[in-house]
């Protein structure tokens, strides 16, 4: 499994994000014993042949450089768009504020999430 990344190991960077029952959680610090229900990783969100709208949007916007954080960006955004399908740019920024990216593709990431929202990713 190559989707969730081990980043800080302290729940501070977001690279490890997965969905537990539809909510984005930091898998590196989430106790396994507390996991009850359905876990979805980036691999489960979409495949190269059948991309999730967010994955499509991140490709279209070329929204990553090294890509280590991008699992977290996409998984956090996917859960977010389910809650708020048509967010403002400020809401996207606020939601992804706790996800760290050192390469500096933030502007493209925000653009990609807005593009996916327009494509109906949250519906």
């Amino acid at each position, binding site marked *: 499994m190559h989707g*969730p990344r081990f980043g800080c190991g302290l729940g501070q960077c977001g690279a490890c994000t997965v969905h537990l029952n539809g909510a984005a959680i930091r898998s590196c610090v989430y106790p396994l014993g507390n996991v009850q229900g359905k876990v979805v990783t980036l691999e489960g969100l979409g495949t190269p042949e059948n991309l999730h709208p967010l994955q499509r949007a991140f490709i279209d916007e070329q929204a990553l450089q090294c890509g280590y954080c991008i699992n977290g960006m996409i998984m956090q955004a996917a859960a977010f768009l389910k809650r708020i399908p048509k967010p403002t740019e400020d809401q996207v920024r606020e939601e992804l504020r706790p996800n760290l990216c050192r390469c500096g593709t933030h502007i493209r990431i925000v653009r990609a999430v807005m593009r996916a929202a327009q494509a109906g990713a949250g519906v």
Partner: protein
Amino acid sequence: MSALIERRALLKASGALIITFALEPHFGRAAQTKPSKPVGLDSVDSYLAIDSEGLVTVYSGKVDLGTGVRTALTQIVAEELDVPFANVTLIQGDTELTPDQGVTYGSLSIQNGGVQLRQAAATARQTLLKIAAARMKVTPETLTMDSGTVIGAHQQRLPLQALIGNQTLSVKMDKAAPLKNPDNFKLVGQSVQRLDIPGKVTGQFTFMQDFKVPGMYHGRVVRPAGMGAKLISVDESSIAGIPGIVKSCGSRASSELSPRPSGQPSKPCGSLPWSGPTGPNCRPQANCGSTSGGRK
């Protein structure tokens, strides 16, 4: 290590170059049991191969650490050889296959590694044009290249693979081989989609951190309590009780080394006490794991 197996399969499949060099005795320990290839910096065959379908495999000693040079280096070779971008595959950093182009740092991948690849492609181009010229009984200057095909003055066309057949280029790098005039660039300078991004957004991409090799150790940098601290002594016995611990090492700083699965956090490094000076810069570190350099 599935990526490595795929490379081997690719190598076996990539026809001409590999077969020719399979029996060269001095190319590595496995020469007698499996195909091998040259990796010296002075041979064009070290950098690129053209297979029987006209597909180009490029061997780069510079790796992609996330900067996107895989895509850029592919563009450079496709441009200089006048082959379609999609017909070029890049293999990076496999020391059995790729020339040693030096370490990957300091923004040197394009300006050093890319320049070498470009010169290799230019030498290949020059060689292919000479072969084509002899075939067509014209001078190389009358020929042009486009989309993997040499084109004569009277529109005769020869695909690259037809020019080398079952042979390799087998030429030395020629620093005087003419480079394409940038005015004629079709691909370099264009914004193409990054080759690695689809795999990275779908969880298919193998990051460096995903590689596991037999006997691999995991180290952890143990940092001092504050800036400016100097290591005075290390109490080795203080870490002896950590399961799987191998040893600590380093003269200026100490590391725990233990064989644990990748991704599993080390024991907090507070278990390895530093003897350091106290001073204005030495503040107690609540959680040393917050430093980013602890894992590799």
